[in-house]
């Protein structure tokens, strides 16, 4: 893939990611370049839906009724997601489940403030999720920084870095608000407007430039499958 020459990393690369020569057990020496050898860095592609509208509508209905959340709590808002599993709120009724691995999840709840360090992990996890995927920004911090508006290491505007489908405001929003946000997301998906993954693929260079502007030690491939 072509190299993005927007912002070159200003921080030296970690030792384990440097190009090096390794001697194999059979005596051969070969060169390892971890970032390019260990990851597939093909760019994401825009994946159109099914040709038949009725099939796509059916799939969209299924997607909306089966939201699998990636269990990744980025900030204090993660504590508001846990009550959703309990008998009091019981989000399982609405087809919402938690999956521990990004491969199986299709909804990423950014729960609260997002520091630059976490943003890096969030991007990796987000990119490992499969198309179509959705992002819910939880709490005011994801909207405009919230109470961390002048903090030196939290991002202020989530949709600069990831395509966001729904924002749930509040500091912190109650679990009811989160449930209402999920219902809103379901309406969006059913209307066929939950195309965040394709948006991400389409404006890939713009998102990458924004991400690299804040993440100075970019030591991963541009797209983590």
């Amino acid at each position, binding site marked *: 893939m072509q190299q993005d020459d927007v912002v070159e990393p200003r921080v030296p690369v970690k030792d384990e990611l440097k190009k090096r020569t390794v001697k194999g057990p059979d005596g051969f020496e070969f060169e390892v370049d971890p970032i390019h050898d260990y990851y597939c860095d093909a760019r994401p592609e825009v994946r159109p839906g099914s040709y038949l509208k009725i099939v796509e509508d059916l799939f969209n209905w299924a997607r909306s009724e089966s939201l699998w959340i990636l269990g990744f709590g980025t900030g204090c808002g993660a504590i508001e997601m846990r009550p959703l599993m309990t008998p009091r709120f019981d989000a399982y009724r609405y087809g919402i489940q938690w999956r521990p691995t990004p491969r199986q999840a299709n909804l990423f709840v950014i729960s609260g403030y997002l520091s*630059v360090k976490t943003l890096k992990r969030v991007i990796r996890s987000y990119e490992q999720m499969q198309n179509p995927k959705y992002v819910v920004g939880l709490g005011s911090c994801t909207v405009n*920084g919230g109470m961390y508006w002048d903090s030196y290491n939290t991002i202020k505007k989530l949709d600069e870095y990831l395509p966001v489908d729904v924002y749930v405001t509040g500091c912190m929003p109650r679990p009811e608000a989160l449930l209402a946000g999920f219902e809103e997301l379901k309406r969006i998906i059913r209307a066929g407007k939950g195309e965040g993954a394709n948006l991400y693929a389409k404006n890939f260079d713009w998102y990458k430039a924004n991400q690299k502007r804040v993440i100075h030690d970019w030591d991963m491939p541009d797209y983590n499958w």
Partner: protein
Amino acid sequence: MRTLLENLKERFPLGPITEQRPDLVFVTVERSGLRPLLAHLRDREGFTHLVLLTAVDWIEENLFQLTYLVHDRRRGRDIGLRVLVPRDAAEMETIHDLWPTAATYQRELREMFGIGFPGSPRVDEEFILEGWVDLPPYRRDFDTKAFAEEAFAHRPGRETHDPATHMRERLTAQGRAK
């Protein structure tokens, strides 16, 4: 506590003493006098727990103040030792051999204040921040607001209220009348 301070005064040169509570005093000591004093407190006087190691940036005096707070579990008392180091040559002796936990504090201080602790394990690795390229962020000459405004994209339309004036306007009579 009094007797302890008397004892210490006989053995070590102590600076100004602040008695915060009956069970908590702060003592200012010289840079070179810290280590023997800490060792004495730990081994002889029962202050076995390093509660925290933190720093204050006295930018006006061009000094960093390091505070070593140690705790005596058995008698339930604390002593804070204050050491002043110059800001432009910010470096301090490491105490990770007295308390292994100090290494973590020292890593944090190295990253957040830029105070060096030569010889402390992994002190030069990044601790919380990743890829930080600016001044250490807890120094007072680091302008957080300007940095945040420059580094991050902001959403327009944000209102800010100063909490004191805002609450005064909302709560007091002349504020509501206005």
